[in-house]
């Protein structure tokens, strides 16, 4: 009897640990989306494809030059930052004053284009980075509490996400450039009067936001399957996280990321539903929250 209860507690702890770990990664993926929205009121519907590109970049760095995903991570982050910059200059700058419909579909089209191009160039196959360094560290998994094991790559991904998130938060709230970024998000005209070049802040927002996705993708690449459609689910979750946390709110992305991670992992355990329904629960929670609080948990609206 006691053993059974013990196992139930272990299962629950295991689920909570997994939920927090993936929740931190969700938070990092989403914060880029949120940052860009806060600045320009544009939702990047190609965000999931940015993540996919980051994962494939890690994959190719590993396959072609034998670089471990952990080693190539800074390169991937820089690469994605460039992708963000180019996207802003070539596509977003043209539609900043366009009707909302054009804004939505420009990035939607970009996502479709990138995803299909990846499928064309690299086939729809599922790929996995063979024996990344993290999967061998400590035998690949650690025991955090008695009987509760978590994978080392997952823990590393969550830690990387947490560090990147903290760095971004400190940059935005403490540095002069970060404050300028916030000023533009708050009020473009007034910021311009203070001598802040909003176009450069938009560039910076895209670089930072996309680099965050780059870090998240590189962290996921150590243990996640890599394929052209991989961004789809992550992107949907990121939209939900951003809307749940409040568009434009950086702390909101963290809270909502953790909420979504926990709901996703806990719902099959607690509700006894099929694991394939877990996202339906996540989206339902999101809908319920935004119907009560349209601005999200920590949004300004």
């Amino acid at each position, binding site marked *: 009897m006691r053993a059974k209860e013990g196992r139930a507690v272990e299962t629950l702890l295991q689920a909570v640990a997994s939920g927090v770990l993936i929740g931190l990664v969700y938070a990092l993926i989403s914060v880029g989306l949120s940052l860009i*929205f806060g600045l320009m*009121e544009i*939702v990047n519907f190609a965000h999931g494809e940015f993540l996919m590109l980051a994962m494939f970049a890690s994959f190719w760095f590993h396959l072609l030059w034998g670089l471990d995903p952990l080693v190539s991570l800074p390169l991937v982050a820089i690469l994605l930052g460039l992708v963000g910059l180019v996207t802003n200059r070539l*596509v977003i700058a*043209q*539609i900043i004053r*366009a*009707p*909302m*419909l*054009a*804004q*939505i*579909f*420009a990035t*939607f*089209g*970009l*996502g*479709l*284009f*990138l*995803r*299909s*191009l990846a*499928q*064309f160039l690299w*086939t*729809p196959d599922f790929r996995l980075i063979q024996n990344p360094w993290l999967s061998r560290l400590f035998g690949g998994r650690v025991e955090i509490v008695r009987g509760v094991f978590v994978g080392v790559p997952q823990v590393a991904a969550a830690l990387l996400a947490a560090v990147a998130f903290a760095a971004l938060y400190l940059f935005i709230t403490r540095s002069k450039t970060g404050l300028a970024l916030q000023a533009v998000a708050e009020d473009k005209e007034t910021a311009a009067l203070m001598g802040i070049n909003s176009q450069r802040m938009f560039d910076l927002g895209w670089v930072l936001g996309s680099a965050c996705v780059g870090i998240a993708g590189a962290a996921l690449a150590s243990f996640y399957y890599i394929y*052209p459609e991989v961004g*789809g689910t992550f992107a*949907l979750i990121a*939209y*939900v996280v951003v*809307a749940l946390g409040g*568009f434009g709110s950086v702390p909101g992305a963290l809270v909502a990321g953790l909420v979504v991670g926990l709901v996703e992992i806990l719902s099959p355990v607690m509700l006894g539903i*099929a694991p*394939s*329904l877990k*996202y*339906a629960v996540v*989206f*339902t929670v*999101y*809908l319920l929250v*935004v*119907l009560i609080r*349209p601005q999200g948990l920590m949004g300004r609206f």
Partner: protein
Amino acid sequence: MKTTHLTGQTLIALALALALVIFPLIVSSPVTRNLMILVFLYAGLAQAWNIVGGFAGQVSLGNAIFFAVGGYTSTLLLQHVAVSPWLGALAGAALAMILALIVGWPVFRLGGHYFAIATIAIGEIALALMANWEAVGGARGLTISFVRDGNGRPADTWLWFQFNQNKLPYYFIALALMITLAGLTAWLDRNKPGFYFRAIKNDQDAARSLGVNVLRYKLLAFVLSAAFTALLGTFYAQYLLFIDPESMLALRLSVLIALVAILGGVGTVWGPILGSFVLIPLGELSRAHLGGSGRAVDLIIYGALIVLISVFQPAGLMGLGRRLRGR
């Protein structure tokens, strides 16, 4: 001056309709017929989306839900209680309207991007539920069995909405649905509900201050869109005799529906039809000639096209036409 312009358009419409009626009598290739049916189907779906997305400016990325409601309702009624798909289509449309009210009432309080994301979320919930609901076929879907004639061959029957020998009726039914929707849109274009939809799209607060009941008219647009999308869902089920959650509910479908309208020109009568006549054959041709769908060449072209249209010509092909004529 204005009346001659209107008659001009009506004449073009009549001539085009006549040409489309005669067309299959001249060109009898099954491939072409199938392509035309798909063009009519997507024109209809885009036209229905256009009411809520184009006229009222509420970007729904979940319209596939209503398509699935139509297809599943008529198919389940047929399989379980032997109701003719014609009646099933009406039941599906009614159910879709009710669903649109239930979903729309809370979700329309969310504006702009929030609304689009909420409709994506609802679509994904529906997809997950249907794929896991074994009583309605789960992920495997539902197959509608052939109605057979005396010799045991798959038969043609208007009663049961199946045309297995001579597929021409499918062509005319799809054409009729497209024309009906175009007619409805043309009416909306010139009458009060359509004006109200546009007012909401342009500035919802201004519309409200002028006495437009914003929520009621958003719901009206959504309900109309849902009903016709559901009718097309039943048509699709009877045409393919097979439905599954992936083909009826995927986000891809919702996006493609909107895309057809956007390419042609949102908020116009001709836009969705024009968009479908360009986009659907383009997709089929690129799939046929540039490698199978596994290589996704058609989707690369779609993607690039959407970006280019959104960036350079947000008013779609209709806007392009107007601009060229203006010169």
